[in-house]
Every structure is written in C-alpha cells, then in structure tokens.
C-alpha cells in the first residue's frame, strides 16, 4: 500500500469533542459571500445603461434557479430537466394571483412557492425512484406537460402570447419596477438564498446527499433514508426555481410560455454543469457566463438552443465535473509537465489537493 516514507498522517484529533463538521470551509464561504456582496454593491457604479442592469438582473434570477438545481444535481446527483417548469409555475402563479385576483405580489410569490412545493412532491415521489436517463425523461416529460398547459389554458394563462400586466413587487411604497431598483432586490434575494443552500450543503444532511450521489446502496446502509431525502431536496430546489420565477414575472410584468419550455431547462442544467456541479460558486460562474455571453455574441442569440446543446455535449464528454475542476486538473498537469526542468517557480509540485484531486 502506501510507502511508509510518504505516509502523511493528518491525525484525527482524538476525543477533542470538537464538532467534526464545523471547520474552516464555513469561514471560506463567508469570505467568498462577502466578496460577492461587495461586488454586487459596487458594480452599479461602473454600469452605464439600464440594459446592463437588465442583463445582471437576469443573471441573479438564473443564479437562484441554478443554486437550487445545484443542490439537486451537483450534490444529490439527481438530474432534472424539468426545472423550467417550476420556474414557470412560480412565474405564472405569481402573475395570475396578483394580476387576475389582486393578491399582494409578495403573498402571491409565497403561495406560488407553496403550490410548487406540493407539485414537486407529487412529481418527485414516483419519478425520483427512476435513475439516470429515465429520470431525465420523466422530468423532461413533466416540463412538456406544463408547457402545453401554459399554452393551451389560454383563458387563465394568456396562451402563447403570454400574460401581461403583472404588478411589480414593492416594499413600503417603494416599488421594484425599474432595472436599477430590481437589481438590488434580485441580487439581495440571490445572495440571501446562497446562505441556506450553503448551510444545507455543509450539514450532515448535505453530506448524506453527496453520499447518495456516490452510492445509494451505501447511503442506505448508513441509515440514510435515501428516497425521502431525494424528494425533499427535489422539493427544495423546485421552490428555489419558483421564487426565481416569481421575481422574473414581477420584474418584467409579462410572462410568456416560451421562457419556460424544455430548452430553458437545458439552459439551467448547462449553467449548473459548466460551473462545476457540486459547487455553489460554480453555479454563479455558470449563470454569469451563460447569461452574459449570449447577450454579447450575435451568433449565440440566433442559434441559442443549438449552442447550448453543443456546450452541454462538450461538457459531458470532456469535463463532466465542470470547468473549475477541469481547469485545476489542467493546471496540475501543466505544472508537472513544465515544472520539472525549470524548478524555479517555488510552487510545491504536489499537484492539486483535496477532494478534487482526481484529474
């Protein structure tokens, strides 16, 4: 096994009574989170047009969905191509409740989220017993059904032309109806939702989810109720999508079914994948990259779905664990390749470390 000379024992502080789960990662997250918050606070100084705000607002909304989806896909390892449906149910729920029935937008947002939670539980119980491709097919099917309902049930949803006149969210007389004001709301919510997501990931339950990802029978043997955990995290991630959908609706004032079709689901999954599944910061990178790029590149706009499909394919084939682990692996390989002769750089040539150690 390991040669005795290289044995590196990071001894297990025996019987120290210290909680084994509360460790430096918490501080690291806090630092990253603060950095993001500061960036969000300072960015408006550099922004010129309302359009730039619009793009960033969409990034924030997408980030909320991707954060939730990451809990499901990146951590628990359950793939969903149905999250645009939950996104849409949140949006239409908010729109119909507030515009048609005069419900307060905040309340509409909450009621929609509760409704989506119930729907996700109903969908999740049978579908999450499926694995791999079958789960993909089932969630995709669900998204198609919701899409058809949004288009066909036109007296309620406004049909294919969409639903107009959704009132904006407001707090104490101040309404979030401009690009600038909504920027603060959207990013505030996105930042806020990162915290419970992070806490879940680093709780014993989060570890159990990662265990389910690696081996369901193994997790079951440890006493993890795998079936119920999968449904719970599915519901939670659907609620994230629903909240994002509500924000989207109240922001734009209009919702259209095209925004919630299966291609949107593919987009969310791609964002999740590209940043690196199982990393909340990766989700930020994915949401940022795949929201901003299409705005900047004309080709991207025209052949949107095609390019997203291509990215998804390339990612799955060449970097199934996302960009960031792949980059780290590449960096390690280059260092090992070039560093031997030069040697001056001073970087200890141990390659990447920790959990991501595998190339």
């Amino acid at each position, binding site marked *: 096994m390991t040669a005795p000379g290289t044995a590196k024992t990071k001894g297990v502080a025996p019987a120290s009574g210290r909680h084994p789960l509360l460790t430096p990662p918490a501080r690291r997250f806090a630092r990253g989170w603060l950095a993001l918050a500061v960036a969000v606070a300072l960015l408006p100084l550099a922004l010129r047009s309302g359009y730039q705000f619009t793009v960033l607002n969409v990034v924030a909304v997408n980030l909320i969905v991707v954060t939730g989806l990451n809990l499901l896909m990146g951590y628990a390892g359950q793939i969903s191509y149905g999250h645009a449906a939950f996104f849409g149910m949140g949006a239409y729920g908010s729109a119909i409740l507030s515009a048609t029935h005069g419900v307060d937008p905040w309340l509409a947002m909450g009621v929609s989220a509760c409704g989506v939670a119930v729907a996700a539980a109903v969908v999740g119980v049978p579908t999450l017993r499926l694995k791999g491709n079958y789960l993909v097919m089932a969630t995709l099917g669900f998204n198609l059904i919701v899409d058809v309902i949004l288009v066909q049930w036109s007296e309620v949803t406004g049909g294919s032309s969409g639903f107009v006149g959704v009132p904006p969210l407001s707090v104490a007389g101040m309404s979030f109806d401009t690009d600038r004001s909504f920027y603060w709301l959207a990013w505030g919510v996105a930042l806020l939702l990162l915290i419970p997501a992070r806490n879940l990931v680093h709780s014993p339950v989060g*570890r159990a989810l*990662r265990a389910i990802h690696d081996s369901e029978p193994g997790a079951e043997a440890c006493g993890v109720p795998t079936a119920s955990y999968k449904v719970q995290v599915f519901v939670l991630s659907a609620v994230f999508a629903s909240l994002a959908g509500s924000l989207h609706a109240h922001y734009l004032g209009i919702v259209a079914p095209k925004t919630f079709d299966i291609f949107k689901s593919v987009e969310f999954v791609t964002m999740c994948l590209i940043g690196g599944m199982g990393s909340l910061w990766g989700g930020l990178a994915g949401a940022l990259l795949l929201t901003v790029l299409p705005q900047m590149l004309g080709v991207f706009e025209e052949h949107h779905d095609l390019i997203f499909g291509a990215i998804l394919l390339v990612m799955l084939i060449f970097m199934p664990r996302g960009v960031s682990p792949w980059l780290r692996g590449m960096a390690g390989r280059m260092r090992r390749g070039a560093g031997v002769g030069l040697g001056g750089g001073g970087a200890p040539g141990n390659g990447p470390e920790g959990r991501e150690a595998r190339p």
Partner: protein
Amino acid sequence: MLEVRDVSFSYGGAKVLFDVSLSVGAGEAVCLLGMNGAGKTTLLSLISGLARPASGAILLDGRPLPARPAGIVAAGVVQVPEGRRVFTQLSVRENLEMGAYLRLKNGGRAERAAVADDLARMLDLFPVLGERIGQPAGNLSGGEQQMLAMGRALMARPRLLLLDEPSLGLAPKVTAAIFRVVRDLPAMGCSVLLVEQNALGALAICNRGYIITSGQIRFSGTSADILSDELLREAFLGPVNGEAGTADGMRDDTRGGSATQEGN
C-alpha cells in the same frame, strides 16, 4: 440475537429463497456459504430491510425487525454491502463519519465526542485509512475500500455486522488482513454474519456455518463439523483449495431447479 425463521422470497415469479432459517447469537461469528445465485445476498438484503420477505419472520432479540433500513441500522444491524459501495468522492474521513450518520444526526455533544473516539479507533483497526484520511475514497485500492466499507459500518456501533463477500476480488494477503479483523469483532461486542464464497477462509474465522444452495439451507453446524465432513467438503467446498468447482454448480442446478441469478 438474530433469528431468521422460515423466510421465503421471490423476484417476480422466480422463487429464490425457500423457508430459510438461521440464527446468530451474541458474540458469535456465523458464515453463510454458497455459490453464486444461491440466495446469499438476497437473504442479507432481507435482513437489512432493503426487501421484505414474502413469508416468514426475521426477529432481533425476539422482536420483529424495524420496517425501514434506517430503523434497522439504528437497532444495531448494519450491512457492509457487496461491492463495498464506498462514497468515492467523499474523503476517507467523511466516509467514516457517514457511517455514524444516525448517531451524529440524533445524538448530542456527547455522542459527537464518542463518534470522534470511534473514528480514532477505526484508524487503529485499519492504519492504512489513517494515511489516506483526507483523500477521496475513490483513490483507494480495492482492499483499502473494503476496509473503509467495514470501518464505515462499524462507525454505527453495530451489534451485528452483515458482511457480503468482503474477499471479492481481493488479493489473498488483503483478504487475510480483513478476515483477521472480522475474527476479532465478536470479542469487541459485534456479532458477525459473513456471506462468503471463500468457504475455507470463512470457516476458519467463524464459529458456525450454514450452507445454502438454490435458496435452501442444506446444512448447518460448527465450522469443525463442516470442515471434517468429507461429503460436504467435496460437494460444497470444492477441491482442497476452497474454490467451488464448476461440476458442483451444475449438480446444484439440476437438483434445485429454480435457482436463478441474483442480478448482481
């Protein structure tokens, strides 16, 4: 402690267990021997709650087992699944802590301290794991993964450990190291039900054994009885080196008829 009474089970139409009975007492190591498809893994999954028997009863201390796998783990019956099933992307330490999942989740401060103690004990039991504590379990060799799977199961502080073919695919030397640990478990307060194809190795470390073919228990007795019985040796344990001969397998099929694969 554990009593399996007249348990039957079928996958769809194919019956794979016929009125199987066995027991494991406190402080005992018992092995269940048989060839591929005999029903060994199925029986273990019934005990660990992954499937329900069609008929018969499984009792722990005279009472029926809890219904859910988590309840069974909490009651002290823990399985080391076939094929190890370690969490490849979690570190060795996280894997071990996952073994104490229910204890960490339900217990307070004192329990957490006890888990930390147990973790140190596992590293004493399997020193290799200590050298790899921060690495992803996927980096471990097969033998190390088997040790990790056992360590993980022991972190739950089981009273009964169910081991499914721990020697599968391992070098003899590694198998021997693992068997030594298994042998010492009863003295540490953990009874063992060991499922094995490596019959001679298993009998050497167990008090008693059951031989199962085609879903039926054909023989049970002390390890010495089984080893000394010429007919049994020839029929079920195969030639001297303990490898099950193909001729035996064919004979079983013609006799038992409905023996089917277990799907793994």
